[in-house]
């Protein structure tokens, strides 16, 4: 039997505790010993309060009971994101965790809908998506697995208080044998030749040595950037936002099962509904707005009562070239920052953990594991990056200078080709690895006014009347099902009501 690997997790935010609990769950004492170092003094960023459906797999894998977790974290359900004013002033669409409509004779739904979209009696594409309609009507129930039913066509995620989620995971992790050390790290010792991290010295003078380090220190990137000097890849030419004001307010009267993102003069504003409060924030570019005017704008646009002071977060879009180098892997914001426009922060933590478990470090050489890990993470980051840039690129410039700039910016070639071929014939160049499948791309293209002009020839054979008939049937099916679906609030009340 080999000596257990000493793993040190640095930082106790969402990334730290997700990593700790997943590592503990997948291993035992003979495989590795896990220590997490955190400092109450430092605190966590905790803006990532909206999640993606994949998080359920993570929770299931580490044995978390959904309803317990939701109660503890004041969670609500999420069926998608509403984008307001994106593309043009007055526009609104929902990017759902589900599909639009159903394919007809092997033709993608958007092709069919695109054929008749300007005709009388044809609704926007969202009207043919169960997830979107449920969202609009503030209704929620679990999806069924039988594909014959309309309410099988979606998945769901959560809005939750990320600090409470971290705390919830901490309890789980401690139960599963993770050792927690409170303290601030003052110094990091590295091996003179290999450059590997050997130990951390805390303010108390205590020294913690380990074989492998998981850097979950957040934006500071304490180990990866500061100690190991990993190079930063700057994506701010495309993703200009570099500040965010976060401002919690009182709870909403009628809780919607979706996140809202509203485009504003110098960026966008989020609204994340929880059971006990509402998360708000304005993500903006300091080139196009002062901090003060951004704060004013945020405060003026919220009707609910503020329940804490606004907090400013500074960042730069991009990522460190390698997330894993030597005996240290950075997970979470320490490995890169992408604004929470599509709620990808926690997802990126999750795939980082999955990949780490797949390529579990050994005391011997990890060079190929490192190469593979970084290859996988590169791909994830690049896919998300392009998808985020898309939101900025597609706009009519009417919202001001910031948007004019985005409209005219050069975008990565891979993305430019995707735009061109969609416009030409509604073709979505999908991929097997990485986030965002066809319905996501279609949502943003169409939602932000980028319509297809030509068609897949196979979609041209259907008669208009047949298409209209199918669309009406679909719409009826959705409405009938929604009529006996509980409201989001009622569902929460019976399934996971938190203490007030």
């Amino acid at each position: 039997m080999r000596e257990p690997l000493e793993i040190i997790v640095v930082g106790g935010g969402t990334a730290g505790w997700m990593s700790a609990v997943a590592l503990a769950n997948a291993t035992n004492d003979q495989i590795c010993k896990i220590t997490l170092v955190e400092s109450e003094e430092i605190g966590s960023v905790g803006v990532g309060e909206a999640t993606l459906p994949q998080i359920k797999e993570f929770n299931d894998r580490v044995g978390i009971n959904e309803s317990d977790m939701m109660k503890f974290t004041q969670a609500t359900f999420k069926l998608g994101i509403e984008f307001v004013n994106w593309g043009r002033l007055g526009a609104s669409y929902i990017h759902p965790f589900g599909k639009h409509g159903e394919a007809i004779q092997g033709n993608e739904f958007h092709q069919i809908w695109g054929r008749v979209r300007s005709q009388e009696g044809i609704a926007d594409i969202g009207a043919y998506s169960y997830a979107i309609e449920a969202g609009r009507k503030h209704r929620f129930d679990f999806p069924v697995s039988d594909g014959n039913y309309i309410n099988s066509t979606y998945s769901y995620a959560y809005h939750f208080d990320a600090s409470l989620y971290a705390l919830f995971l901490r309890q789980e992790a401690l139960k599963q044998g993770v050792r927690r050390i409170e303290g601030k790290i003052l110094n990091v010792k590295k091996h003179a030749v290999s450059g590997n991290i050997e130990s951390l010295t805390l303010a108390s003078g205590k020294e913690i040595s380990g074989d492998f380090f998981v850097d979950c220190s957040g934006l500071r990137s304490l180990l990866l950037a500061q100690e190991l000097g990993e190079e930063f890849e700057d994506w701010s030419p495309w993703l200009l936002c570099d500040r965010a004001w976060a401002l919690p307010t009182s709870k909403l009267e009628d809780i919607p099962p979706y996140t809202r993102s509203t485009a504003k003069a110098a960026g966008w504003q989020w609204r994340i509904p929880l059971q006990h409060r509402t998360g708000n924030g304005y993500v903006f570019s300091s080139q196009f707005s002062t901090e003060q005017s951004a704060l004013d704008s945020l405060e003026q646009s919220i009707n609910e009562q503020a329940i804490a002071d606004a907090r400013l977060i500074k960042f730069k879009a991009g990522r460190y070239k390698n997330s894993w180098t030597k005996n240290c892997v950075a997970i979470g914001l320490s490995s890169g920052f992408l604004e929470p426009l599509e709620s990808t922060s926690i997802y990126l933590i999750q795939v980082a953990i999955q990949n780490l478990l797949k390529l579990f470090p050994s005391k011997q050489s990890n060079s190929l594991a490192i190469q593979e890990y970084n290859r996988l993470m590169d791909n994830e980051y690049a896919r998300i990056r392009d998808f985020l840039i898309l939101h900025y690129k597609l706009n009519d410039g009417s919202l001001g200078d910031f948007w004019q700039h985005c409209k005219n910016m050069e975008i990565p070639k891979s993305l430019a080709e995707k735009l061109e071929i969609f416009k030409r014939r509604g073709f979505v160049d999908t991929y097997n690895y990485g986030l965002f499948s066809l319905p996501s791309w279609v949502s943003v293209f169409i939602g932000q006014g980028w319509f297809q002009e030509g068609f897949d020839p196979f979609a041209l054979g259907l008669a208009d009347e047949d298409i209209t008939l199918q669309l009406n049937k679909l719409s009826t099916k959705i409405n009938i099902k929604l009529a006996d679906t509980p409201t989001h609030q009622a569902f929460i009340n019976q399934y996971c009501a938190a203490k007030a």
Partner: protein
Amino acid sequence: MNALKRIVVVGRDADGWITAFMLQKTIAAHKLDIELEFLELPSDVNDGDFFSVQPSHRLLHDMLGAKEQTLLRLSGGMYSFGQRYNNWFGNGSSYMQSFDRSGVDFNQVPFYHYWQKAANSGLKLPFEAFNVGAAAALAGRYVVFEQVGSTFSHASSGYQFEARAYIATIAKAAIAAGLKHRATGIHQVKQSDLGISALVLSDGSEVTADLFIDASGYEALLINQLASGAVESWASAFPVDRLIVASAPKLTPLPAFNQISAFKAGWVGIYPLLNKTTINIACSSKHGKTSDVLERVSASIGMKLFNPVETLFAANHRPNPWVKNCIALGSAATNLEPLDGTHLLSLHLGLSALRGLLPQYTDCAAEAAIFNRSMNKQMESVRDYLLARYKLNKRFGDAFWDAARAQTVPDTLAYRIDLFKSRGVIAQMEDDVFIPEDWLALFVGNQLSTSNLDALIDKIPDDELMSKFQQLLTYIKTEVEKMPLLQSYTEMTL
């Protein structure tokens, strides 16, 4: 922009007929306003030629509306639930590769790691002992499950067909479906800035179209005119330059698998068919005379070979199979030896890609760019898979195999091999055609071993692991015993 109104397929044999029939069917089914004509070139098929195809070929048949059993009966075809690779790492060595997975993951760690750990401590059972498809193939069974969905297995079969009969069956169906076709030769390919402007046929008449499909096989009659020299030779990676097809009597009882055996200067495949057995020898003329090879093969497999027909072969690939208004499909685009049921694979992949990208307008550079990128990556991935068998061989002392082993392989393949040797992990790439379980079966079968097994396997105690293994073996044995023998199944159904 002008609408695409007319497509001409210039082709022969399977590439030509399948392409034309597929287009005919889909155009008719979707009531498209597109005219189609098939110009049929003289056949290149030899006596005894065969096709050995992957399970995915079933999808192509579905698209064509072909009924499996009828097609097998009419084309003397047969199922194969696996391929047994013999002598690839020294004479006497052997493993069965099925179209199925081995074992199940425990705690989300691939079964391979548990099996290798057990093998390292003395377990004598091969990896494929935990594979329903392999067990069924070895036992000569036709795979059906008592309770569908209750199993970890997704065992499936590839097929082999007699080429002439198979093509004739498809041609007949295509004509019955109303395909407009004529047999002709191409006298001249006229060009303009847009690509091909017209074809002058043997009788002097001219044919025009908005889109030309080159399914003329190795000759690449049209695309070669537009882009001569735009072919990559893959011959230095694949040393086989001769294919010899011969026939032998039918095997009884019918084996449920093909055998692919390496020998001094190449490999020989034995493919059981409905009415006979087909033998395919792939070898290099630089490493021995064909007549000697035939004699040696006949002796080593213990079968008398009839009607051997020898053809020249060279592996090659066209990185841009779509040029202007001409698309090369099948052998006109890529040629690989049929080592892993890869007959017609390039055709199938090309047709699938074209189904998603058939242009609405005559100007189609945007479609071509996506098609070319995708096809190029997919075929390189197939190449890597076949090449891995050569690279990983352990036939020391045979010049043919020593050179194959010593060659430098593309970075993509080198990386997959290195990652597996280092961690037991299969690198998954965007345009892979063969899935991770295929790569795993190949690597394990070729005795590639891993220096670092996944540490997470230690979470399951050895005795618990052994009992999980036992359960799997019992399940497999019970299921396979309930399956019908392939011999009796085909007697009843074909």
